């Protein structure tokens, strides 16, 4: 039976402290777990992801989390992938030449360090720091988030999903996808838990959505 808490997937023993702290600050009940069975009890799942794509996939498989995630997302359980957790939702990553979860079609590509920013300088990789997002398609996740709000990024690869799943973009030597998914299954490349107020707002939006039973009334 589902109860009212968010599960934070942590397959690496205690590395997901920031998301947990942010949720605690928001007074949102949450539990860090690597147990596929426990995920089934949660009203929503947050997958922060940590490390490199290859190791992360290997660890997910070993814990039996890959199948559990596919099953739960397939059944409409609210899901939020963050940073590497976002990239892993596509079906492939150039990082370690890795086949990933395949919740959405698309690949993760490495930033081309020869591309140039608006001032004509070559970009720095990793893309590290605060950047704006341009919303392409409205979503419950973006409630209260305004044009000009910035989010904290740190990554060398970026997701490249199909256009119909694109929800927001960001500019770094070119426009790349920073949020994708569909209502209830979201992937954000930045770290909402480290993005001050607008980031905390997104985490709250996710919780409110999950608490309502994913909008499907179940």
């Amino acid at each position, binding site marked *: 039976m589902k109860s009212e808490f968010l599960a934070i997937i942590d397959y690496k023993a205690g590395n997901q402290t920031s998301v947990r*702290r942010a949720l605690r600050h928001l007074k949102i009940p949450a539990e860090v777990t690597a147990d596929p069975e426990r995920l089934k009890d949660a009203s929503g799942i947050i997958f922060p992801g940590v490390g490199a794509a290859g190791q992360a996939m290997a660890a997910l498989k070993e814990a039996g989390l890959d199948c559990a995630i596919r099953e739960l997302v397939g059944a409409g359980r609210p899901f939020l992938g963050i940073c590497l957790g976002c990239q892993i939702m596509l079906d492939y990553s150039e990082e370690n030449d890795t086949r990933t979860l395949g919740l959405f079609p698309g690949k993760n590509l490495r930033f081309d360090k020869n591309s140039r920013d608006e001032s004509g300088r070559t970009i720095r990789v*990793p893309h*590290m720091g605060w*950047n704006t997002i341009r919303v392409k398609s409205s979503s419950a996740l973006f409630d209260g988030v305004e044009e000009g709000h910035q989010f904290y990024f*740190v990554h060398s690869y970026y997701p490249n999903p199909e256009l119909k799943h694109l929800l927001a973009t960001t500019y770094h030597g070119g426009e790349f996808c920073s949020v994708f998914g569909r209502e209830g299954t979201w992937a954000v490349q930045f770290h909402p838990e480290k993005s001050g107020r607008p980031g905390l707002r997104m985490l709250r939006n996710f919780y409110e959505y999950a608490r309502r039973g994913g909008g499907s009334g179940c």
Partner: protein
Amino acid sequence: MLSKRLIPCLDVRDGLLTKGVKFQNNQDLGDPVEAARLYYEAGADEIVFYDITASAEGRSLFLNVVERVAEAIFIPFSVGGGVSTVKRMRDVLLCGAEKVSLNSAAVRNPGLIAEAAEAFGSQAVVLGLDAKKVPQSARVPSGYEVVTDGGRSPAKLDALAWALKAEKLGIGEICLNSIDADGTRDGYELELTRLIAENVEVPVIASGGAGSPRHLLDALTEGQASAALFASIVHYKQYTITDLKRYLHDHGCPVRLV
């Protein structure tokens, strides 16, 4: 477009805040957690904590500070000072810091960088590079020598060569501090900042010498730094972070206004 980051730096000794001038005669300012919260609210993009404690007790007090900071602010923060083992890095990261900077320990043992990057990812490993201007020589062709132990010991290492080597070993960022400019409030060492920033791919944080908004602008434009670190100009309420950001914004420098 990627914003330039403004980073206040807090020196912590025995769990309390200090601010040193030229690394000497530090004076206590108060509670680091409270200061972090104020800077978070005021729009700091990141915060750096330096642990200048020498004792074992002070070190565990510091971990407690890190943990309380992580509960109070929701922006990235990094920790430096006296980190010389992967174990200590793990402790600090598990307490909630985003990044750890390695300084003297990495100079003594460059393998530590690779070990840390392998264990935690490059994004968590910052190179703290203290440099001092010296006459150019075969050993120090850039004219900037790496110094360790808070600026006291010359490392007989060229600053540019070291930055490039550390980048290859896996650091994700460089916090570049000019020992000559530190504490002067006469402006960042622009020549040094630009030299390193132009030659590495990872972001460079300019440090040492901030005394006015103009100094920050120079470091972020002419110096090509991705971020500017400062202490006294905000600690003593001469400027607020909003003042600094407003100035940068008005001069065409991309910043995050909150």
